[in-house]
């Protein structure tokens, strides 16, 4: 079986696919790649199905030895990768020969880079998905981030190398932006006009303690809601909750399934992949859009992802 030996894990490297939906009644959130678009495209570059498991690296990448030949692609942010010292291009399929070492450094763009391998990372599925849920230690590789010395198995592959590359126009069209489009949250009308003003005119900085569960934001506190006593309810991906203290939190892929804080807004589906590329200290702001606009953005994104000219091969 083809393998990958982890010589250095990087800051936080986990096995992720497109997550496990449908287990909310058990308290299990979907998890999955923080930037699912990057993972999908990385998989296509190596000839995998979109939802194949890959490695998600965060801010600082790992070092991986390939004892056998393999075909890989790096997708997402630029971690200045090298293969036996030679630079490796992002968004391009790369042939790795037995004994070669792929080394990734610090990010030079966003928060996450995906290593996709032809055949996928093979782990035992938990509730139908390979994704790691770090907080509960479930899924992925032993339910945890990779460590030095781990050996990962690569799924069966046909092994034929094909040069594939993401079109330049697509890289630009899909680049994450720092203005997040949002629709009103479930308790938006609890926040008076003056609070909405603060939220939509302010700039917020992604705090250091942000993670896959949620992004904590620093900036002008939002004067609190006055709608009444909040009863814990289900929360959606990208919900922006405002706890006591007024500093918003964006609930993310490893989110809690329910929450008891009022939500002022919710990041639109089309901008969620971009949230996965936000780094601590990044400055963002929010732009209110209607539901119709949110759906238009999502359809536009999916049409782009379905384009025949997306991947040059």
């Amino acid at each position, binding site marked *: 079986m083809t393998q990958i030996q982890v010589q250095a894990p990087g800051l936080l490297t986990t096995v992720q696919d497109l997550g496990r939906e449908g287990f909310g*009644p058990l308290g299990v959130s979907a998890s999955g790649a923080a930037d699912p678009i990057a993972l999908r495209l990385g998989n296509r570059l190596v000839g995998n199905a979109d939802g194949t498991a890959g490695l998600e690296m965060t801010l600082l990448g790992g070092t991986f030895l390939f004892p056998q030949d393999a075909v890989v692609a790096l997708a997402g942010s630029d971690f200045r990768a090298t293969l036996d010292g030679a630079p490796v291009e992002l968004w391009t399929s790369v042939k790795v020969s037995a004994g070669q070492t792929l080394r990734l450094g610090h990010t030079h763009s966003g928060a996450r880079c995906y290593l996709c391998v032809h055949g996928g990372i093979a782990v035992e599925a938990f509730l139908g998905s390979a994704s790691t849920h770090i907080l509960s230690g479930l899924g992925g590789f032993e339910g945890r981030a990779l460590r030095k010395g781990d050996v990962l198995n690569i799924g069966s592959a046909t092994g034929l190398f094909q040069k594939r590359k993401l079109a330049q126009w697509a890289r630009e069209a899909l680049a994450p932006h720092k203005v997040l489009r949002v629709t009103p949250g479930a308790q938006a009308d609890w926040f008076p006009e003056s609070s909405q003003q603060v939220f939509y005119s302010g700039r917020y900085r992604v705090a250091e303690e942000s993670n896959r569960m949620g992004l904590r934001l620093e900036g002008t506190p939002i004067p609190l809601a006055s709608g009444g006593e909040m009863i814990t309810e289900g*929360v959606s991906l990208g919900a922006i909750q405002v706890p006591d203290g007024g500093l918003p939190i964006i609930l993310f892929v490893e989110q809690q399934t329910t929450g008891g804080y009022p939500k002022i807004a919710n990041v639109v589906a089309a901008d969620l992949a971009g949230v996965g590329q936000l780094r601590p200290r990044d400055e963002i702001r929010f732009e209110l859009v209607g539901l119709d606009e949110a759906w238009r953005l999502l359809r536009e994104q999916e049409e782009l992802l379905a384009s025949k000219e997306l991947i040059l091969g």
Partner: protein
Amino acid sequence: MRYDFASMLTPAADCARLQPASDQSLLVYFGQQITLESHQHVMRLLRLLELKPVEGIRNLHPAYCSLLIKFDALKLGHDDLEAILWPYLDRLEDVHLPEPRQVEIPVCYSREYGADLNEVAVMHGMTPAQVIELHAAAAYEVYFLGFVPGFAYLGELPAALVTPRLATPRRRVPAGSLGIAGSQTGVYPFATPGGWRLLGRTPIPMFRPNREAMSLLSIGDRVRFMPITQEQFSALEKA
């Protein structure tokens, strides 16, 4: 609209309020307070949607008196989903819920496992033994699982034990810890951050991925806590 115990027989469709939560989710509220009736409606709608799944619905997040429905926004909009849901809501009274399971959870209530046991006792002018007796005497209902896999929100706590959560949550609460917050009680399945006040710990795993029923508790279960000694805790932990 407000409903309370006086309107115990309110048909679900009459008190349901549907509201977008995001561009890919919808909240169904059954009133704006925690009542057995609203929770019955939540369980019935959840059950009906599990028995007769709707194409395009991707996930369900039940809570005290609401159900969040996540859908594929490329296939459905809120209007489509509402049109599908009203006939479901009209049928809720016919949904048969299984008899609640009775589950006993052994707990070692102690200062060692329950870091807040003494403080909770002091706050209510009781001895720790009285706190334990009150907590273990009550039967609790599983309102829903949320927060993390297998975390059951149990209620109602006896009025004499209602306690605000910690002002500053702990960074790490040990797995199995039994806590209280407001009128709720629950057991942390995993070592996670948490702001509930801790009274004890169970040696029984609350969530095990290799067990057929992964979560020890399910929505609707009736739960009692059974005090055990340190020795019994150790023996059960090894078993």
